[in-house]
């Protein structure tokens, strides 16, 4: 069973704001799911290569050249931000 502190820690790492009453609900639900996942411990995984990609794939690369977007395209993108200026996204100060 995950503790309340663990749930709060995970929420903080995920940058998810949880309401006080939600913490207990997620605590119960996540714990139940993690209990079910314990099943994976039954498998003998010694000497097995993990699969991160289901098909054998080679690294696909391209030239390291930027795509120059038309200014109208840039505007379409930045206009959707809550705060932008001259084609840049505006953010609040990043503090230590």
């Amino acid at each position, binding site marked *: 069973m995950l503790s309340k502190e663990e749930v709060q820690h995970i929420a903080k790492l995920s940058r998810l704001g949880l309401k006080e009453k939600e913490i207990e609900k997620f605590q119960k639900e996540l714990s139940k799911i993690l209990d079910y996942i314990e099943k994976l411990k039954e498998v003998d995984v010694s000497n097995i290569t993990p*699969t991160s*990609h289901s098909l054998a794939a080679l690294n696909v690369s391209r030239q390291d050249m930027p795509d120059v977007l038309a200014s109208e395209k840039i505007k379409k993108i930045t206009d959707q931000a809550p705060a932008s200026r001259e084609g840049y996204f505006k953010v609040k100060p990043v503090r230590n």
Partner: protein
Amino acid sequence: MKISDFTIKDIHKGLKKKEFSAVELAENYFDKIKKEDKKISSFLTLTQDLALSEAKEIDRLLSKGQEIPLLAGVPAAVKDNILVEGVKCTAGSKILENYTAPYDATVIKKIKEQGAIILGKTNLDEFAMGSSTENSAFGPTKNPHDPSRVPGGSSGGSAAALAANFCAFALGSDTGGSIRQPASFCGVLGLKPTYGAVSRYGLMSFASSLDQIGPFAKTIDDCRLIFDIIKGKDEKDSTSVELKALDRGSQISNLRIGLPKEYFIKGTDAEVEKIIKEAIGKYEATGAKIEEISLPHTQYALPAYYIIAPAEASANLARYDGIKYGFSANNQTKDLLAVYFESRGKGFGSEVRRRIMLGTYSLSAGYYDAYYLRAQKVRTKIKEDFAKAFEKVDVILSPVSPTPAFKIGEKTDDPLLMYLSDIFTIAVNLAGLPAISFPVGKAGKLPVGLQIIAKPFEEDTIFETAKLLEKK
């Protein structure tokens, strides 16, 4: 024949013979949607202006006696996690409630090139996370066969729209069963292509190693037509692969079918079992060899998926931070960290937050090896199970779901119970294989789908196998 019962082939013929115009056709579909979608709620956005201007263009080509492309004038519904330029794209989430797509997904570009008429964007579980479309921030979609029941998920809107004849085909996405399960619940065909067969460029990512876009259609020919148009290597999606056409024509007559014993278990609805067994009987009658096989790691597919998919989702959904687009708490707080917490806390629904947290936990320091790495190793074993089985058989058959469509609200209190609805579809995504849900009967008034799984890039084998039953 009612205009809304048309297949893609019917429409192509009808337009060429001038039995109706593309504009008439589109208007007919919109009329039907406006009258009947109130009961179903399959669409989130209708794109009437876009559709009518595209239809006018098709009519112009026809009036000049010019050749029209394969999908000319054919009305399509698109799941709302696939970008259509200039059209709202919400992912079924409050966090993107007012987001407008700045570009077309590659699959959209391709169907537009073939003249398809996009009628609108369909409802889905938020960010494709769910098995019932009940996780949509904009309300659930109802199953056209029984509006008290779910259409399945996460591509419930697309499946329902097609089943209700609101379009001639639809596009969805499948990460753990999200095309196949709603196809089964709604009585339409739904194909999940081989991982890499269809470009994911313009699909809002959920789990990058599992997601695939695929077609919903009424017939095998229609399904194959759409698949052939949307498939192909795309330089914008590094995981996409060019398919080499396989000439399997003659081999399908000596079809070897595998029935995995782990997929024919207690807990499957008796009616579903009966219908699937009947379908298998029909295959036997065609001369196909039926063989029991084993996929020994089947019971570990669901737990492995519920580590891998949420882990990948936690990374893919990090971009929804209230900075570049979407719902933002930017004006409500002076603190950057608070912008993240508030935007995401308020913008994401419960299931999305649950999965992001699950993913973050399993990737975090101290837990990565025990959870994520272990799940990826179990994934290898699951892949190997299928590879071994495919040495002896050409296709693997199973039910798509242990039950037909369940009632709205039936599973919403228990996330784990909801996850178990994907028990037969999920291993296929982990192994990257192609699979279809093909309607084979009804339990009362509720449709039941048969799952046909094939080797990587053998979608043609799936189509040929399904065709054997379609004739009957």
